[in-house]
């Protein structure tokens, strides 16, 4: 294995909003306490899931489209340097300017510099994961530049000084009354009579943003796709705010991850069928804009594209995890994920929540980074995300792979046997002899005592603590199965359990039923 001379050493990890500031179990525990969030999420994910299934079932060739989509993305990754150069050549030939950014800080500085060159201090923004990832809005604010989010949900989140919790419907954790209150509090000139009818709220947002759209000189966007063979960029949206930003201002600055390429125009026919149905459960999203450089007399005449690495090359270097870069950010995996449905997006810390976030964030930051090493464990490995993914990313396999990377990275740093090691040794000692087990089972009533009157143990000590952080476990029976068996089978006259044992036998009998084959 030879490294070319002058080649940068890998991996170089990403920066920005990819890091969790606290571990997933801790954040999840807090979010689980939010009943409103859980109710909103449950409703939302169920609704989108059902719509998606219906729309997917309409296409007789859905699986063939997935196969094509998956193979196209695999070939993009294999040919990435070549495709990037081809794209750059075509984009530049049509009047666009390309900037390369190694990480979040560099991308932010480039965008701020480009805005400063225009002399403007306000920009309108199209919802974009890439700019969210690099924390662009916050950076611009520090630089004295105000960025107005124009997607309704992003606007709600921005006005409330909150963070998005879903990549498709970022304000899904808020209900209509909360949104009305936010508008009344934060939107200059909001009608005090504002009701919480979604149509009324949408119109309030319309008039709030209208002036901005019509006067903005600079817009910032992301891109859903970039076509290498023509230098074309595409943005997929619903509200028309994207079209406003992409066509009315004089200067357009787009920030895009290097992995978003598609080799040819023809490939668009695959992804424009996969994306809307997987994400919003629609046959097609209301608006898609495609532009190839500058068109004279139509749309922005200054066109910039910031190509972002920020940990993508690190993810690419992981042969097993590489396919996480195939993601087209449809959000189907989070809508089917039982863990996401309960914890919501904030628990994942990073810009990328849900199953894809659980693999993408640690791949981009390195598994050793801060609290991201807990993310690969934020899954029951049920496989629903893999089934839903339009580009067939095998998320469960990558989760398992990352868990092993995590374990490996910790090995060697710990000389003292871990609690898990001790626990496992103790278990093998106990289970290897019936006598030892019987002795241990005498301790069961103690467990009942620990459980208290509600018959639930809410906190286990030591290594098992994590397990009870977001679950309660039922109290152990006061009598072990062995004791129960011995009593039941002692003599015919001992018969069935006496009334005084009622509560007890209920517990142990139901356990017995499950234990028996």
């Amino acid at each position, binding site marked *: 294995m030879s490294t070319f001379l002058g080649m940068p050493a890998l991996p170089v990890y990403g920066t920005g909003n990819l890091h969790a500031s606290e571990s997933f179990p801790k954040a999840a525990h807090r979010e689980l306490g939010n009943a409103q969030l859980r109710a909103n999420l449950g409703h*939302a994910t169920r609704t989108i899931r059902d719509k998606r299934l219906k729309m997917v079932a309409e296409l007789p060739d859905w699986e063939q489209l997935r196969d*094509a989509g998956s193979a196209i993305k695999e*070939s993009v990754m294999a040919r990435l*340097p070549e495709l990037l150069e081809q794209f750059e050549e075509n984009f530049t030939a049509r009047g666009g300017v390309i900037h390369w950014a190694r990480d979040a800080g560099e991308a932010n500085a480039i965008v701020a510099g480009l805005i400063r060159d225009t002399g403007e201090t306000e920009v309108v923004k199209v919802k974009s994961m890439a700019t969210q990832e690099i924390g662009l809005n916050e950076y611009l604010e520090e630089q004295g530049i105000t960025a107005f989010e124009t997607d309704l949900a992003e606007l709600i989140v921005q006005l409330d000084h909150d963070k998005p919790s879903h990549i498709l419907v970022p304000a899904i954790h808020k209900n209509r009354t909360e949104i009305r209150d936010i508008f009344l509090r934060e939107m200059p000139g909001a009608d005090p009579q504002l009701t919480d009818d979604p149509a009324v709220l*949408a119109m309030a947002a319309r008039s709030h943003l209208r002036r901005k*759209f019509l006067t903005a000189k600079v817009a910032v966007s992301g891109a859903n796709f970039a076509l290498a063979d023509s230098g074309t960029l595409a943005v997929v949206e619903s509200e*028309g705010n994207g079209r406003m930003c992409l066509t009315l201002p004089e200067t357009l600055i787009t920030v895009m991850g*290097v992995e978003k390429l598609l080799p040819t125009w023809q490939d668009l026919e695959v992804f424009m069928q996969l994306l809307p149905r997987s994400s919003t459960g629609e046959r097609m999203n209301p*608006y898609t804009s*495609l532009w190839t450089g500058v068109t004279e007399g139509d749309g922005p005449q200054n066109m910039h594209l910031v190509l972002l690495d920020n940990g993508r090359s690190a993810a690419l270097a992981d042969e097993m995890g590489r396919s996480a870069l195939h993601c087209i950010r449809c959000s189907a995996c989070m809508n089917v994920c039982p863990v996401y449905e309960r914890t919501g997006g904030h628990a994942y810390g990073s810009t990328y929540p849900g199953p894809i976030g659980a693999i993408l964030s640690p791949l981009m930051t390195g598994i050793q980074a801060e609290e991201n090493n807990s993310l690969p464990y934020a899954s029951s490995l049920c496989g629903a995300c893999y089934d839903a993914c339009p580009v067939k990313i095998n998320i469960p396999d990558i989760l398992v792979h990352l868990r092993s990377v995590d374990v490996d990275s910790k090995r060697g740093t710990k000389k003292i046997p871990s609690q898990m090691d001790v626990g496992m040794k103790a278990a093998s000692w106990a289970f290897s002899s019936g006598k030892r087990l019987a002795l241990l089972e005498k301790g069961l009533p103690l467990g009942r005592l620990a459980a208290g009157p509600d018959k639930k143990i809410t906190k286990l000590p030591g290594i098992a603590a994590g397990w009870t952080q977001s679950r309660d476990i039922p109290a152990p029976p006061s009598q072990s199965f062995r004791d129960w068996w011995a009593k039941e089978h002692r003599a015919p006259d001992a018969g069935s359990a006496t009334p005084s044992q009622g509560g007890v036998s209920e517990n142990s009998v139901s356990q017995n039923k499950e234990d028996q084959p």
Partner: protein
Amino acid sequence: MSAREEILGRIRTALKDNPEAPQIPRQYRETSGLDEAALIGLLADRLIDYKAQVSVVDAAEVPARIAELLAGARSYVVPAGIDAGWLSGPGHEPGGSRRHLDSTAAPLTVAELDGIDAVVTGSAVAVAETGTIILDGSANQGRRAISLVPDHHICVVKAADIAGILPEALRRIDGTRPLTMISGPSATSDIELERVEGVHGPRKLDVIIAR
């Protein structure tokens, strides 16, 4: 080292295992095989599903239908290259003081567009299966801004321009033109997933399918 060289270098290093680019299996449908009547029916059905209004008329009736739809508009804009016949005949005042022409050579300002009620355009291609209309900026569709800012978009789709499925449609399009794909009026579902038509784009979309 420049950022460009460094990033490309990192990517090459990341691919040092030389992964192979697979053959792309394209077993998905590339044509629909629907006839014109079926295409019109399917497109109309999908558009109505998106809450667009649809009228299916003979080509000769297009001007009358446009005049009818424009009756309530104080002003409207058309691209300079619009099919002249669509705006003549009964119901259309010659020249029309309500009518604004727009072209890349003589573009209306955004503020002017904001004061205009409606817009009439043609279209490049439509996709029946998804209810999608594609504008490619040719002369009878005009600049992207005119179909965006006015609140009511009246769009004429010729039956011959309807494709069954997306791959058929995209193969009829020059991908390097400024393209807008429209599937229904502007919509949002951001508040409790309740669909609201019309946020920033035109709140009303009228499609006239011309046989």
